[in-house]
C-alpha cells in the first residue's frame, strides 16, 4: 500500500492512553454513547487491553487481564499490522472499518464474546475507534 494512507504505529499502553484521552475529549461521544457502559478488550497481536467505558467515556484502561477484572463483554482482536492500517488518517480499503476487517471475506479482526453489546453500541464504538486516526 502506498504512503498515501500514512505510516505504521506502535500500540503500547502509552498509545492506548493517548487514544483514551482523545475519546474522552470528544464532544460527540457523550451524545451518541450516553448508554454505552461496559468493558471490552482491544487485542493487539498477543496483548490484551481492557477498556472500561461508562456513558461513552473511557474510565479505565489496563494492559492484560487479571481474575479480579471478572471478565469483559466482548473483544476485538487483530494483528498490529491491521490496527496500523485501520488507524491511519486515510485507511486503505478493507481496513477502514471494524466490520470490514471482521467480515467473513476478509477476516482481519475477530469479534469474540457476547456480541449483543457490541451491536447495541456499534455507533458509539465506531466513533470511539475512529478517533485512533487522531492519535
Amino acid at each position, binding site marked *: 500500500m502506498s504512503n498515501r494512507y500514512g505510516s505504521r504505529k506502535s500500540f503500547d499502553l502509552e498509545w492506548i492512553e493517548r487514544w483514551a484521552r482523545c475519546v474522552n475529549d470528544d464532544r460527540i461521544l457523550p451524545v451518541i454513547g450516553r448508554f454505552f457502559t461496559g468493558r471490552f478488550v482491544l487485542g493487539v497481536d498477543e496483548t490484551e487491553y481492557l477498556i472500561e467505558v461508562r456513558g461513552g467515556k473511557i474510565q479505565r484502561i489496563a494492559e492484560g487481564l487479571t481474575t479480579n477484572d471478572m471478565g469483559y463483554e466482548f473483544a476485538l482482536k487483530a494483528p498490529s499490522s491491521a490496527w496500523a492500517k485501520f488507524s491511519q488518517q*486515510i*485507511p486503505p*480499503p*478493507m481496513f*477502514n*472499518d*471494524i*466490520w*470490514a476487517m471482521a*467480515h*467473513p*471475506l*476478509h477476516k482481519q479482526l475477530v469479534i469474540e464474546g457476547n*456480541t*449483543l453489546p457490541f*451491536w*447495541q453500541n*456499534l*455507533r458509539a464504538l*465506531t466513533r470511539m475507534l475512529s478517533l485512533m486516526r487522531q492519535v
Partner: protein
Amino acid sequence: MNTHDPIVGRYVYVQCEGKTYRTYYEENGEGIPLVCLHTAGTDGRQYRHQLCDPDITANFRVIAFDMPWHGKSLPPSDYYLMEEEYKLTTRFYSEFIVAFCRALDLKKPVIMGQSMGGNVCLALALKYENEFSALIALEACDYSPGWWIDPLHHPHIHGGEVVATSVFGLMSPESPDEYRWETWWYYAQGGPGIFKGDLYFYSVDSDFRDQCHKISGKVPIFFLTGEYDFACTPEMTERTAEKVKNAECIIFSGGHFPTSEDPAKFKEVVSPVLKKIISLDPERRGQAAGLAGRSNLVELRSSGRSERPGEGRRVIDF
C-alpha cells in the same frame, strides 16, 4: 424566490405475483428510460443527484422507484399476518422490476442498480434479456456472502442505528462527509427487518456463480465498483465480469454507494458509460445536447475478451 428540484413523484399500482403494490417513483428528464434500483433497505432517494442532473436528464428519462416495503411504497396490505419474516427473493425482485417497467409502459429501458440492485442485473440478463437495452451494475458481483445476519433485526438492538452503521464503512473515507452521512440517514430510516430481509436476496438467494457464463451477451452490462467496497470488492466484480459476455468492468476510487456518497465523482465515472449507451441507441436520446463535461478515464489494459476487442478494465485516478 423559492427553489425546487425538478423531480416529480407519483404512485403507480404494480401487479406482481398475484398482489397489487402501490409503488412510489420519482422521475425527471426525457429520452432513453433509465430505471434506477436502490440498495438493500433504502429507497430511491439515493438517486436524487442523478435525477436533478441536467447533463443526464437531457438524454435520459431517469426513474427511481421504491421497492415494496421501502421508502414511500407500501408492503402488501396483509403483511401483519405473515407467518415468516420478510425475505426478498431473486424471483420476486426480478419479476417486480419487469412489472414496474411494464406498468409505466417503458420500452427497452436501461436498468442501473447498485449493490443488490446491481446483483439483480445478473438475474435480469439471465431471464429477461429481451426487456432491456443495457444494464449498469454498480457494486455488483455474482455472489456476496456474509450479510444475512440476525443483529440487523433484533429486538434488543436499535435497527436504524445498527443497520446504518454497519454499512458506513462500505463508503470511501474520502467521500464528502455530508453525503456519507446522508447515506447513513437513508439506512437509518428503513422498516424493521427490511434491510436484513433484502440481504436474504443479496447474500443467500442470489448466488450466480454457476450461471454467469449462461448470459448471452445480447444486453451490454457495465460493471462499476469502488475500491472501498468490502462487500463486493473490485476483485469480486472483475471475476464476475470476466465470466459475462459483452461486459465491461470499471474500478474507481469510491465506495459501495456511489450515487449518493459522492455524486460528483460518480458523474465522472458513469458519464462515459451513459455516452456509450446513447451511441448504441442514438434515436432515443433526448432533445438536448450530449453529456457535458470531460472525463479523465484512462484505458490501462485490454480485458482480452474477444467479444469486445479494445474494451477492458479501466482505472480512474483523481
